[in-house]
């Protein structure tokens, strides 16, 4: 194995890792506050991608506007899901909302299939984004470079918002203790909506990255990356932003290194190896790599 092969696998890991990282942030925020594993989160990613595809098919709109509109659509869908599928069930326990999120996931997938057909579709970004650059021994597209910068910028902005603003402090308070937050005058519903807004907006961005990388899209494309992003969030330490991002990158890199370094006869099973890794890490660090001691939620 040459070092350049290793490097390019590492790059592939970073690419897919950044998708997991971005989706994991949304997962982690929602889970941190509601203890809800939102299975539909990955499908919001799909909604975003199909919205981008549709708007591009109309033609005429500049790409940045298409992305902004699609982010808004994803947020709209996400907030509606929260309002109508989760909020009414919130008092009836975490299991109920979990089932509800599975239902929503399936509904979103099927609605997309009904509208766009279950077939794979080609997804082409404009040429100036797919142009390739050689950096040392690795090849990156413009899109990849923008993606890395975007992940970094998003992280910095988010951590400032969460660390420094009153809104961010209220979000942390909610994920620490929901009851106490209510009694400290925090409008918990507003905070939850905010978590969904951020999460769904990011999911749309992640969808764009994913579709741009694989150049095809299909109605189920968000579900498995969504699950992996949840694993990433758990791996990093749920509720911790930097943990979610680190978890995403670790998972992505592990997956691609497995794929690249294992004998070809077992690479199709690489996902199993990735999840074994997850289990091993959690055996030693039950609260994730960055998770401190989980305070009792009472």
């Amino acid at each position, binding site marked *: 194995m040459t070092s350049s092969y290793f490097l390019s696998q590492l790059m592939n890991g970073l690419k897919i890792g950044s998708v997991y990282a971005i989706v994991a942030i949304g997962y982690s925020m929602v889970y941190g506050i509601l203890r809800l594993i939102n299975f539909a989160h990955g499908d919001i990613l799909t909604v975003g991608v199909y919205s981008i595809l549709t708007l591009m098919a109309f033609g005429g709109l500049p790409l940045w506007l298409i992305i902004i509109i699609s982010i808004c659509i994803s947020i709209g869908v996400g907030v509606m899901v929260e309002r109508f599928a989760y909020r009414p069930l919130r008092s009836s326990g975490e299991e109920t909302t979990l089932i509800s999120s599975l239902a929503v996931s399936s509904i979103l997938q099927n609605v997309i299939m009904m509208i766009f057909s279950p077939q794979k579709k080609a997804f082409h970004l404009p040429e100036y984004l797919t142009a390739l650059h050689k950096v040392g021994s690795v090849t990156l597209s413009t899109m990849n470079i923008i993606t890395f910068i975007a992940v970094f910028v998003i992280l910095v902005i988010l951590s*400032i*918002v969460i660390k*420094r*603003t*009153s*809104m*961010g*402090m*209220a979000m*942390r*308070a909610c994920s*620490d*203790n929901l*009851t*106490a*937050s*209510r*009694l*400290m*005058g*925090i*409008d*918990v519903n*507003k*905070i939850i909506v*905010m978590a969904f807004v951020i999460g769904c907006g990011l999911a749309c961005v992640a969808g764009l990255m994913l579709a741009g990388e694989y150049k095809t899209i299909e109605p189920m494309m968000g579900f498995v990356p969504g699950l992996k992003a949840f694993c990433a969030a758990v791996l990093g330490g749920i509720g911790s932003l930097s943990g979610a991002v680190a978890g995403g990158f670790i998972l992505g890199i592990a997956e691609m290194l497995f794929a690249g370094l294992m004998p070809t006869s077992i690479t199709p099973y690489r996902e199993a190896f990735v999840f074994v890794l997850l289990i091993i890490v959690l055996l030693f660090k039950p609260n994730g790599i960055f998770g*401190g001691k989980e*305070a009792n939620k*009472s």
Partner: protein
Amino acid sequence: MSVLLEASELNMHFKGLKAVNNFNAQIEKGSICGLIGTNGAGKTTVINMLSGVLVPTSGKIIFDGKNITGVRPDKIAKMGITRTYQNLRLFKKMTVLENVIIGAQMHDKLDPLGIVGNTIPHKRREAELKDKSMEMLKVMGIEKYADHISGSLPYGSQRKLEIARVLAADPKLLLLDEPAAGMNPQESAELTEIIRGIRDRYGLTILLIEHDMKVVMGLCEYIYCMAFGEIISEGLPEAVRNDPKVIEAYLGRGAVHAEN
């Protein structure tokens, strides 16, 4: 003296269990009232209703001239009733100072873009909140822990922190659920002084649940005693303490005669 809070005919039934039955109370502005009673008497349930955590099965709560029965807890908090918990509800992963800032910013609008849109007013407000929160920590005597993670504090200090947090929100009525629980005699004597001090300094009205009779007798100007969901005695501390019904509830039938 005017009445700040009036609870009339409050009932809280859980599927046939009458946790609180026909609870009537009037709390005067500026007073410190005590709510005592044996375990399971319904004291905490009363506090839960007053703070909006539970919606009473029937009855009415008037606070500061407004009917607050069934109003959401965050709105009740903003109207001026804040509470502490018997088994502490701190934000354990946040620092001590941050905990208090959350309380201090209760009346602010949550503004996600504050730091981007108008940085200067936001910075100034941030500094104000910080100063105020530090002041509260000083009042409670725990300012040296400001940057500690709150979950790591000694138990007694966590209790004080919880009071500092609600105090920062400028409440009118403070509901304290067993503030001295788990404290040693010296700590609870200190706490008694602090509670009286904050009442005088901030013109608060306080309703407290407490088992430590020294604290109750030392602080309260009026006492309600509950047993099995009902008020069995109320009045001035001396009168309640000597009420045979109260002694019976605490020590059992026969204790009254045995004592005489």
